[in-house]
């Protein structure tokens, strides 16, 4: 166990080194024309860490994508590349808003009820492609991708005809009642109690995958489907469970995002949090325990980008560029399977073994 941990550290160190190199490679061309190139890089790298409020901003950004990262992890672990989590977020937000607007108030439990409604409704977006795959072998990647847009337009229709506040200037819902909103945790930021839920959810997800029987069975079905059927595992049920759980987490992400951050529901496009979730899942190597640091890291990049945009006038799209470049580098197995790296890991293990 110890050796595996140390070997993991080496990989982590290399990951950080790769990320640092990519960051600088992308940033330096933007920084050079500036009067003080050093301040540009400092603003990006140190800005997010400069005060408690900025750290709060990082956590605020990290909250929804930790959820979607976890959702993507669960879904991918079942062996299905189900992209329904993207519209699951949208649907979850819409359903939670609807619940908050239409249902009676449940006092302090109102947000809880709204989030549960969001989660349940949101899970449809992953269940449908999963069912189509299991029953008719329809490729889930295609069906979920198409379904994302069907759900978006159905949702926008619903918003327009049932939730729209005619008094508001543009297409958005009525104001979400105050008792449905999540508690803010840090003054000056929109960091809310959803962040705690996200952290707990990721830890629970990790415990599920690695320390329970059903988590082991899910990993067996996802990584060894033929073996699973030879064992007599109920593969279809296990795969479906993962779609339901993944979809619910995506729905929760949407619900918490809307109830925690916005005065009204106003998404008329897919929010993109599901796509970011996929990036997180890949960055975290589909391990729920690593989802939290991966989400915080992307949040940190985002806040750094905000600094660039606000203080220096470099477009915040640069952050998207950096994220993309980092993804390319981090997923390059050529770096992580490099003989020199493997040799280093081996040496560590031998030292351990000798002790």
């Amino acid at each position, binding site marked *: 166990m110890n050796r595996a941990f140390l070997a993991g550290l080496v990989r982590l160190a290399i990951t950080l080194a790769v990320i640092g190199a990519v960051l600088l490679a992308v940033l330096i061309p933007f920084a050079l024309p500036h009067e003080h190139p050093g301040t540009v890089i400092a603003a990006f790298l140190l800005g997010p860490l400069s005060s408690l409020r900025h750290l709060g901003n990082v956590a605020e950004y990290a909250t929804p994508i930790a959820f979607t990262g976890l959702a993507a992890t669960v879904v991918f672990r079942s062996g299905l590349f189900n992209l329904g989590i993207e519209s699951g977020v949208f649907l979850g937000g819409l359903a939670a808003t609807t619940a908050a607007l239409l249902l009676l108030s449940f006092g302090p439990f109102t947000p809880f009820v709204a989030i549960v409604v969001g989660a349940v409704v949101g899970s449809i977006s992953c269940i449908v492609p999963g069912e189509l795959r299991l029953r008719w072998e329809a490729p889930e990647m295609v069906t979920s991708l198409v379904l994302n847009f069907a759900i978006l337009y159905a949702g926008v229709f619903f918003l327009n005809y049932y939730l729209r506040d005619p008094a508001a200037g543009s297409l958005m819902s009525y104001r979400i009642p105050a008792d449905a909103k999540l508690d803010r945790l840090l003054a000056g930021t929109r960091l809310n109690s959803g962040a705690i839920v996200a952290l707990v959810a990721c830890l629970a997800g990790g415990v599920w995958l690695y320390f329970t029987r059903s988590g082991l069975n899910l990993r067996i079905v996802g990584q060894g489907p033929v*073996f699973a059927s*030879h064992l007599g595992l109920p593969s279809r049920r296990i795969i479906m469970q993962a779609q339901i759980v993944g979809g619910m987490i995506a729905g929760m992400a949407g619900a918490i995002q809307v109830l925690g951050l916005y005065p009204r529901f106003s998404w008329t496009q897919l929010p993109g949090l599901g796509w970011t979730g996929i990036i997180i899942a890949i960055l975290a190597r589909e391990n729920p325990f690593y989802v939290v640091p991966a989400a915080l890291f992307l949040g940190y990049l985002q806040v750094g980008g905000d600094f660039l945009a606000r203080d220096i006038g470099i477009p915040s799209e640069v952050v998207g560029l950096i994220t993309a470049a980092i993804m390319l580098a981090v997923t390059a197995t050529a770096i992580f399977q490099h003989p020199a790296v493997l040799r280093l890991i081996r040496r560590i293990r031998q030292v351990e073994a000798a002790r």
Partner: protein
Amino acid sequence: MTDRRDDGERAAGPAPVVAFDHISKTYANGTVALRDVSFSIPARTIHAICGENGAGKSTLMKILFGLEGPTAGQVLLDGQPVSTATRDFAGRHGIGMVHQHFSLIPTLSVTENIILGHEPKKGVLIDRAAARAKVEALSQRYGLAVDPDAITGRLPVAAQQKVEILKALSRDTRVLILDEPTAVLSPPEINELFSRLRDLRDHGITILFISHKLNEVRSLAESVTVLRAGQVAGAARLADVPDNMIMQMVMGRPVEITRREPRQVTGEPLLVMSGVSLASRDPADRLRDIDLVIHPGEIVGVAGVDGSGQRGLVSLVTGAARPGAGSISFDGEDMAAASTERWRARGMAHLPSDRFTQGGVPALTLIENAIAGTDGDRRFQRGPFLRGGAISEAVAGMVEDYSVRALSIGERLDSLSGGNVQKLIAARELATEPRFLIADQPTRGIDVAAAAFIHKRIVDAAERGAAVLLVTADLDELLRLSDRVVVMFGGQITAVLANEAHLTPERLGPFMLGLEDMP
């Protein structure tokens, strides 16, 4: 560089075409695959390389083929040191290799497969006529008849192997490496292959033949080098040494081959199949009118050329398929429509033929693979949670019991060699004390010591009262273990024979080839 030989004896005759000079190889994960290996191979001979799994045979061949470089030492071709592991090394030096798992693309034609990588060109296009002519010429020259236009994937295995050999020969090859080439062939096909290989030698090609099977080595090769644990354990001219000496070199200790005393089994049969047929998309899996009974404590061996219906038979008694007609009962219960889950609940255990896809998950750890499928076992579970400590202890015990060689039980399954993977799977499957054990090619491709170990465990299971269905292409294994032998051909059972002393592979042959049918 000196042209040295290590086995003490200096062969008269042509200079060695290949020489290994103090080759060592340590992998990045710390595995020492080869340790100071030196020997040489005279030109125009067939030289066998024997050894257990993990003895280093494959690594040595990968080095010679240029897929990997040695950590120390060098390879000499015609006495000249060469640096392997360079681009297109094998192609430039005329070394061809026939891999155990074919490297053919099933959807391409025979011609396309053979010319792949060095296509004759006409401008930017492939010169198809020239390619076809080249394949025909090759095929004629070496007496390996293939249809150049056939789609490779549709050919029988033996024909695909010919394509593989032609591919290996297609670039002015002087050294041909064959890695376990007989594993996929029936006895007559093996004879055919061997006479083709002798022809190739007479054409001036040096052949390196890697095999586990001593009788094949003896009938084909002139000399042998035995590797054990990455070192040269011995080298000899086959004419000079008896079998048991080579066996001892391979194993490092003497081994006994005895037929198991067949036992008279009485009482009610545990498994009864009657009039069973199976429809399948793949003709090789179809079954017609199968009658089969297995008693508790009895090992029934299924013989047959690969694709005679064995796979269909196994799929029926593991719950992977449902019969089209007929009945299957187990311990008096109708199991024709039973799922794998139900078969397992009744005490079925299965050593599948494909270890890495059917027998385990390569990317999961030994621990996880060892406890897979033990759902609800109180020793390993408290509520939904796995009991890490108890599991580690139990798996460590299994690894110890079955002498699985692994760095640690936290390693991934694919860090083990084939024999060790099979031992771990056997440990898992037999841990449940099954009432019905299906052993499908239980020792294919694994070393003699591991095979003997697995055999013992199968016999132990039978002696505890399990009914055992042994499906194997290895007739030695079949005769060694079975109480009764059934022979399959074309999806039918063509013979049921008691395994008595006069039952020999020769006696089984006609049934396996469908030349004879028992009334």
